[in-house]
C-alpha cells in the first residue's frame, strides 16, 4: 500500500512538474503567440484609453467581452462589426439611459466625443483578434429561409 511519504512525494513532485510546464507555456504564449494573435502592434494610445474607460466603468459587470463578464447585456467582442461606429458612439454619449429590446436600461455615461472615439478604437482592436473561432457562427441548417 501507498505510504504517507510516497503520497507526499506524489503531491510535491507532481505540483512542481506541472507548475514548471505551466510557467513555460505562459512564457511562450505571452512572448510569442499572443502578440501575433491579438495584433499587439495595433494597440494605440486610443485603444489603451478605451480599455481604461472599459475598466473604470466596469462595463464587464453587465456585458461580456471575449466571452468574459456578466450575462445581462450583449456580447461586445464583435460589436464594432455588428453595430458600427455611429451606433456605439450614440449609446455611449447618450444623456438618457439607453434601452435595448428587452427594456433593460444601460447607465447613461454621457461620454465626450473623444472618450467615445477611444472606446470605438478599443472595440475595433478587439474585433480584429484571432479568437480560435469564437464567437461561433450560427448553424446554417437552423436558419429560417
Amino acid at each position, binding site marked *: 500500500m501507498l505510504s504517507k511519504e510516497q503520497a507526499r512525494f506524489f503531491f510535491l513532485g507532481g*505540483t512542481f512538474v506541472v*507548475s514548471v510546464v505551466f510557467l513555460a507555456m505562459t512564457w511562450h504564449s505571452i512572448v510569442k503567440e499572443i502578440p501575433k494573435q491579438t495584433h499587439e502592434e495595433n494597440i494605440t494610445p486610443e485603444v489603451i484609453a478605451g480599455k481604461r474607460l472599459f475598466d473604470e466603468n466596469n462595463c464587464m*459587470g453587465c456585458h461580456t467581452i471575449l466571452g468574459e463578464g456578466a450575462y445581462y447585456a450583449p456580447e461586445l467582442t464583435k460589436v464594432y462589426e455588428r453595430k458600427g461606429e455611429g451606433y456605439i458612439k450614440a449609446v455611449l454619449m447618450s444623456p438618457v439611459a439607453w434601452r435595448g429590446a428587452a427594456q433593460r436600461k444601460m447607465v447613461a455615461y454621457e461620454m465626450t466625443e473623444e472618450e467615445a472615439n477611444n472606446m470605438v478604437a478599443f472595440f475595433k482592436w478587439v474585433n480584429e483578434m484571432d479568437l480560435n473561432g469564437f464567437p461561433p457562427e450560427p448553424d446554417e441548417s437552423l436558419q429560417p429561409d
Partner: protein
Amino acid sequence: MRYKSQKVAYWFFALSMLLLTLQITYGFIMGFAHMGFDGLHDFIPFNAARATHNNLLVVWLLSGFMGAAYYIIPEESKHELISVKLAYVQLISLAVVGVTAIIGFHLNWWEGRKFLEIPRELDFLVVINVLLFLGLIIGTLYKGSQKTTTSLVLTMGLFFAAILYLPGMIWFDSQTLDSFFRWYVVHLWVEGVWELIMGGILAYLLIKLTGVDREVIEKWLYVIVGLTFLSGVLGTGHHYYYIGAPKYWLIVGGIFSALEPLAFLAMALFAINMYRKSGRSHPNKSALYWTIGSAVMSFVGAGLLGAAHTLPQVNLYTHGTLVTAMHGHLAFWGAYAMMVLAIISYALPNLTGRKLYDNAASMYAFWLSNIGMVCMTCAFAVAGIAQVYMERKIGLDFMQVQQEIEVHFFGLVLAATLFTIGICLFIYNFVKYGQPTDEALITDTEQGEVMA
C-alpha cells in the same frame, strides 16, 4: 475549545454570516433585474449589484477560512495564538477594507475585472491585511510543539492564496493579457490553492468527527491535493481557449481540466469512506452533514457541472452564457460555502459551550438551503441551455433571447427563496448559540469528539 485564543474565530464567523446575508440580498436584486424589474437601476445598476454580490462572496469565504485557521491552528499546533490583539486588528481591518470596497462599487470606484473589482489602491491594504493574518498563523505554527500535515496543508493553501493575489495587481494594456493573468488569480484559487484550504479543513473535521486514525486521513489528503494540482494547474487552459491565446491551450486545457473532477471525486469518496469506517457516532450531526455534504456537492457542482462545459468543442458555444453561472453557483456552494458552514457548525458548540446541533432548525437549514441551491442551479441550467441554442446556434439577437428566458428567472427567484429560508435558519441558530466564553474551555477527553 482548548485554547482561549480560539475564541477569535467566532468573530470571523460572525462577519462571514453578516456578509453572506448581504450577498444574498444583492443576488435577489440581480434576479429581479433579469426578470425585467430593474426599479433600482438608478441607485444600484446591475454591474454594481454584481460586483457587490461576487466580492461579498469572496470576502465572506475568506473570513470563514481565516476563522477556521484561527480555530484549527492553535489546537493542531498545541499553542495559543501568538497575539490575540493583532488578530482582532486584522479582523477589523478586513471588515473595513471589505465595506470600503463595497461602498466604492456603488460610487463607480472599481475596476471592471470580474472577481477582481477591488481597485488596485485598496488591493495594497488587502495585501497588508493578509500578511498580518499569515504572520499570526505561521508564527503560532512555528512556536507550537506539533506540526501536523493537516495544519501544514491548510497554511500552505492560505499562503499560496495570498501569493496568487499578486498577478491580479499588475497593469496591462492588452485585454487578452489582462484576462490571462486574471485567471492566474481566479482559476488557480478555486481550482488550486483553495482546494488545499478545503482539504485541510475537511481532514481536520473528519479526524474530529469520525475518530479515524490521523495518519490514514492525512495520507489521503496528500493524494487528493496532489490530484488537484496535477490536473488543475494546466487545467487553467480552459479559460484560454477563446481570449486570443494560442490554440495549444485547447488541447492542454481540455485534457487536464477534464481530469479535474478526479480530485473532487476522490474528496467525496474519501469523506464517505472515512465516515463509514468510523463506527463511532459524534453527537454533532449537523457538522457531519455539512462536512460530508460539502464533499459530495463539490463533486457535483465543481466536478460534474464543470466538466459539462470544459471541453473546447462545448465551451465554444457555452462560453459567456448563463451555463457558466449555473456551474459557478453550485461549485462555490458545494466546495467552499458548505465547508465554511461545516467548520462553523463544528466550532460553535465548542466555543460557546451550548449544544444546539441536534435541534430541528439545524437540519432544516441544511436541507432547505441545499434543495434551494440545487433548484437554482437547474433554473440557471435551463436558462443557459435555452440561451446557447437561441443565441449561438440559431443566431437570434442577445436581447431578444433574454426576453425569451425571463421566465426562468422567476423559477430562479422562487428557488432562491427556499435557499434563503435555509440560510436564515442557519443564522438564527448561529445567533442563538450566543457568544464564546472561557467556560467552554475543556480538556482533551471531555470534548466528545471520540465518543464510542
